[in-house]
């Protein structure tokens, strides 16, 4: 299991009636990565995550932690940390009761570790869930599942509805307490700008298909964003950029691969931002077809 990918998905397809939720999705997640799963609403993020934990049967070949999710669901659920998109902790419960409950349900859960993690937060063990703010509930939930001795964490929109401070505390705890170079985490979100610096890799879904699956390091290498004067706009357009956008009076053209030298010299190379790339690859279906 040492050099195996934690997640290995090949040609996953999932249909609900006539709607295709996942269309020939192939992705791999090695160890030690922070992978962002990006997509607009309905792009298939939640379906993919549910398939990964064995909650939805899919066509294709799928291995998670070396297990087949639908066949080995019970075992799998004890070996990974998962927060579903409709995550709710029981409102009536006290935090210490949840710790006891987790100890009974999860063989790999450490109550001691959960208590240590909770000390980072302002949540106390005697607090009732219903007395906590949304941000505190999210932190409690993260503390509970990060106390499972697992190799993989799957978070479906974990910061939805949280204010900016709570989101920051959430991600701080994740980086601090989970990311140790061995464990990986898959996070779905559409707050693309915010998670960009956090990620090592990104998977973009568009209408059930993988629009892009790449490391952030490779994004800097593969995609070229050129900042240029309006006068160069026609020349840039002729070189078929993926996207052009305006910012502070200058225009940026985003290319997949280096454009010809005479084009490159017309602009100044800037960092292609994840949100621009996301817009370019998931907004316009025609461009996506060309991409594939």
């Amino acid at each position, binding site marked *: 299991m040492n050099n195996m990918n934690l997640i290995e998905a090949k040609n996953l397809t999932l249909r609900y009636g006539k709607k295709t939720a996942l269309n020939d999705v192939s992705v791999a997640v090695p160890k030690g990565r922070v992978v962002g799963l990006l997509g607009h609403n309905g792009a298939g993020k939640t379906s993919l995550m549910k398939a990964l934990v064995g909650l939805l049967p899919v066509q294709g070949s799928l291995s998670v932690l070396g297990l087949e999710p639908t066949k080995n669901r019970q075992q799998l659920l004890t070996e990974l940390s998962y927060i579903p998109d409709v995550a709710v902790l029981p409102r009536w419960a006290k935090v210490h009761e949840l710790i006891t409950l987790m100890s009974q349900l999860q063989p790999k859960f450490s109550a001691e570790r959960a208590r240590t993690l909770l000390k980072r937060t302002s949540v106390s063990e005697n607090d009732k869930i219903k007395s906590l703010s949304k941000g505190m509930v999210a932190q409690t939930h993260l503390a509970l599942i990060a106390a499972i001795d697992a190799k993989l964490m799957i978070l479906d929109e974990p910061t939805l509805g949280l204010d900016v401070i709570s989101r920051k505390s959430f991600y701080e705890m994740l*980086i*601090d307490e989970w990311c140790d170079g061995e464990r990986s985490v898959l996070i779905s979100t559409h707050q693309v700008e*915010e998670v960009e610096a*956090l990620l090592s890799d990104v998977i973009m879904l568009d209408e059930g298909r993988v629009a892009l699956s790449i490391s952030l390091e490779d994004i800097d290498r593969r995609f070229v964003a050129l900042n240029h004067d309006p006068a160069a706009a026609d020349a840039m357009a002729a070189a078929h950029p993926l996207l052009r956008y305006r910012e502070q009076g200058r225009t940026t053209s985003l290319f997949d691969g280096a454009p010809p030298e005479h084009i490159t010299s017309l602009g100044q190379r800037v*960092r292609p931002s994840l949100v621009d790339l996301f817009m370019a690859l998931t907004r316009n279906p025609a461009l996506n077809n060309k991409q594939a």
Partner: protein
Amino acid sequence: MTPTWTDQAPIYQQLADRLAVQLLDGSPPEGEALPSVRALASQYVINPLTVTRALQALSDHGLVESRRGLGMFVMAGARERLLRHEREQFLQKDWPALRAKLKRLGLTAKDLNWEST
């Protein structure tokens, strides 16, 4: 979320630049250890791999060195080298533009306040 990263350079490069500015201010001093990769990742809320790349960039410039099992340390003479580099950068890149602006505004050295910090 703080801090914000611009689109002018890769994030690891921007972090390396920030750390270099701190080194120039003597934080941490030469011979002392830098915060760990995890501490920096948590402080800036960025991926640990990005931090590693930033530290590698500083190491490539001879500013920090890795001591096995102990982490990264500021090298002797790092501040001096950094200062020399920054001065050169200023004189070559920033000064011509600044000089042109001063000329345009008709400002000379005696019009400028050199005292306040």
